[in-house]
């Protein structure tokens, strides 16, 4: 590329400069792409397709439930309508936080059944894990100690979110039951940090979660556990963060 005002000398000079620049870090063009970058692409791609798949599954389950309630249970359907109405209210008041809880539940469903790679960095390297995720989320993170509740840290991973990076910490009990804590910055559509909120419960989309917002960050604790059990664990997490 040359400017119209360039002389022949200039053109030769810029051509030589360009050749020199093309030698800069040329080895990067030929060396294999680092594994963590490949994983970033794969994860982001997979979590997208997983999310869509789960949304379809969720819609199907919901329609089955409604049909079941309407056709079979007669008056019983009114009892099942209350939580649905409640969910819609929450959706209207806090769409960002609810979407966040949904992301958390999907991430839980994707990674908690993993046998070989449930986490990117294991708990044996906890200090490095926390430093890494803190840097990537641009917030000093702490890992709650849930040993009193019978859960130990498996490790963590970094995931892409709608408004930046998200961290997922995974814990498990001696029976292998896994719960995940999902953390990320929350901003509404105007980019303003989300307000603080009380604990909210998302009934199962695809797994139950308790989620809350604190100082612009969203937290969601997800697991296939009874509501009360999950609430106690969420309380223990909240107290430590």
């Amino acid at each position: 590329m040359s400017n119209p005002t360039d002389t022949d000398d200039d053109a030769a000079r810029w051509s030589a400069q360009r050749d020199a620049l093309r030698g800069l870090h040329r080895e990067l063009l030929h060396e294999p792409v680092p594994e963590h970058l490949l994983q970033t692409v794969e994860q982001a791609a997979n979590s997208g397709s997983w999310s869509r798949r789960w949304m379809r599954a969720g819609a199907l389950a919901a329609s089955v439930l409604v049909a079941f309630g309407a056709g079979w249970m007669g008056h019983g359907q009114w009892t099942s309508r209350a939580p649905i109405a409640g969910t819609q209210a929450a959706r209207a008041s806090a769409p960002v936080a609810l979407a966040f809880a949904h992301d958390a539940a999907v991430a839980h469903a994707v990674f908690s059944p993993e046998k070989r790679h449930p986490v990117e960095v294991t708990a044996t390297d906890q200090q490095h894990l926390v430093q890494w995720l803190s840097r990537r989320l641009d917030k000093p993170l702490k890992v709650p100690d849930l040993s009193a509740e019978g859960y130990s840290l498996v490790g963590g991973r970094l995931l892409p979110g709608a408004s930046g990076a998200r961290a997922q910490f995974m814990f498990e009990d001696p029976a292998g039951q896994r719960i995940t804590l999902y953390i990320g910055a929350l901003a509404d559509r105007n980019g303003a940090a989300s307000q603080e909120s009380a604990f909210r419960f998302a009934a199962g989309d695809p797994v139950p979660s308790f989620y809350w917002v604190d100082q612009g960050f969203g937290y969601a604790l997800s697991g296939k556990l009874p509501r009360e059990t999950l609430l106690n664990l969420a309380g223990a997490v909240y107290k430590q963060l």
Partner: protein
Amino acid sequence: MNTAPIVACIPALRRYARALTGDAWMADDLVQDTLERACAKWSLWRVGSDLRAWLFAIMHNVWVNQVRQGGARATLVDIDEASHELVAPDTEPAVMIDLQRCLLRLPDEQRAVLLLAALEDFSYQDIAKVLGIPAGTVMSRLSRARLRLAELMDGAQPPTSTRPALRRLK
């Protein structure tokens, strides 16, 4: 989503990021942020348009935000200590180190234009789209960048002890 076309662009993104930031760690962080954002925004990419230009545009936005927040500046700090990392194996190492150092002394926006033109063979129009500036601005920045880099390199070779050390910008 088929990830192969994105993966194929990663080496070029890494080299550009490395030359832009002068730092291996920061460059791969920049690439990682770019890939995350690209995958999240994948539905916004129009099939048939230039994927490489789209990815470089995303990277530019990520980088501009980092520079604005002061994060990317920190790299200039350790250039002396990091100079051993700047060696390109199949070229004269000292020249490459000088070239990288001089590049980092260019204003950010000039460095970006120069590297997109030299490393990626983007046209003026492509660069204008990637950076979100008029094509005329691309041309003027490119000629200023070339001149400035040439001046800096003339001053840098041969290396002399009187050459001012890179200022700490932390």
